[in-house]
């Protein structure tokens, strides 16, 4: 590839120490590296495949393998960039579903605790929704649906954390705003019972007793077995009000197990590798190995 040398006197950005090798050899070498978890070495091979044979089936799968390798090496930004490049070059291809899914996984794994900036949580939500919308009946969509619930739960968690802080600071009105936001926007998350309970607390602090009763009633009606309703019931009674909803049924506090189960556990190993699509890439049309020019 002397032509390359003459054209650009500056070296290409990544090293091209590899001679022009047959594409399947390059690809196989890259795949071997990935199997032995040497992500960065594998990436160099796949980059080479893509640069030397940009039109082959190999280069399409090489981009996916690069994205997967970057993801496994926790280089989330590069993995997202590779996925975007795949989507741009091969939008119609069936394996594009994996590219979108991997991009969503990258954002999902960067979700941080509620005390800090939730921008990656938002990005994860958008990406997961896109996977569900574009590729509805794939296994990726199923996983995306589950993760969307977790993400919404996380966003609701942030609202609750800020609401509780305002409540304890004495800014009762601000806390009501936050808890109402959770009840309005995140009704299906695990935080709704607590949001209703906190509204009872807040309105009692203001002295608006019948509004407190209304919220306790909805809590009792929708979550009779929830510990939060038991607490609300006790709170109302201690303030001499008798809520007009039935007795709380289960007064057993949540076991530790319940708490541990829905703590988000990141099993990186559960994320599937790129699919081995059935059509093994056809042997490259023209003989790959050109005599060294």
């Amino acid at each position, binding site marked *: 590839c002397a032509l390359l040398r003459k054209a650009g006197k500056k070296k290409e950005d990544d090293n091209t120490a590899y001679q022009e090798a047959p594409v399947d050899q390059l690809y196989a070498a890259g795949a071997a590296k990935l199997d032995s978890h040497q992500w960065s070495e594998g990436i160099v091979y796949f980059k080479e495949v893509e640069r030397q044979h940009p039109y082959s089936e190999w280069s399409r799968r090489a981009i996916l393998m690069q994205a997967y390798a970057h993801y496994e090496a926790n280089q989330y930004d590069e993995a997202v960039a590779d996925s975007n490049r795949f989507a741009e070059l091969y939008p119609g291809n069936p394996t594009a579903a994996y590219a979108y899914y991997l991009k969503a996984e990258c954002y999902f794994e960067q979700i*941080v605790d509620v005390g800090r900036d939730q921008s990656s949580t938002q990005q994860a939500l958008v990406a997961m929704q896109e996977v569900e919308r574009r590729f509805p009946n794939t296994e990726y969509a199923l996983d995306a649906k589950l993760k969307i619930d*977790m993400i919404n739960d*996380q966003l609701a968690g942030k609202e609750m*954390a800020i609401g*509780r802080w305002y409540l304890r600071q004495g800014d009762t*009105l601000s806390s009501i705003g936050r808890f109402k936001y959770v009840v309005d926007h995140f009704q299906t998350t695990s935080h709704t019972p607590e949001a209703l309970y906190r509204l009872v607390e807040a309105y009692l602090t203001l*002295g608006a007793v019948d*509004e407190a009763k209304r919220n306790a009633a*909805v809590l009792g009606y929708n979550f009779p077995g929830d510990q939060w309703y038991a607490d609300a019931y006790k709170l109302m009674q201690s303030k001499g009000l008798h809520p007009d909803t039935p007795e709380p049924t289960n007064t057993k506090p949540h076991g530790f197990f319940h708490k541990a189960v829905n703590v988000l556990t990141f099993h990186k190993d559960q994320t599937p590798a790129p699919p081995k699509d059935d059509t093994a890439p056809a042997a490259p049309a023209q003989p790959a190995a050109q005599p060294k020019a």
Partner: protein
Amino acid sequence: CAPTNMFQGFQAIEAKPQDVKVGEDTKSTVMSRLGSPSTVSTFDPNVWFYVSQVTQVQSFYHPKVVRRDVVALTFNKDDEKVVNVATLSLKDGRVIAYNGRETPTRGRELSILEQLLGNLGQGSLLNNNQDLTPGSRPGQR
């Protein structure tokens, strides 16, 4: 030193929520005179609340709420006329021990090592002054 007052929530300048007239005012007249409510009941759109609060902040004491006016306006479902005006003040408020339990959330916490060495800056704010005169001790900062 004089404590400073913080005026929070709804600001009644000329028009006050207390003097809304039952049977006469409707949602639109209240909205035009007072602006949108501080908050609306969670499940009953016909109950509006106007909440204003004065908090006193002094040196290292906890901020103390010294005055709070809550006005609850209930509207008739059909003709949106004011049915009831309930006013509450600070003494109507109940003192509550807020429940300590929290619904668990997720997300990666910062590991201790990551926090300490997470983003080391250059230059040194470290107090390595050469204050070598005998008898000087860091404790006396």
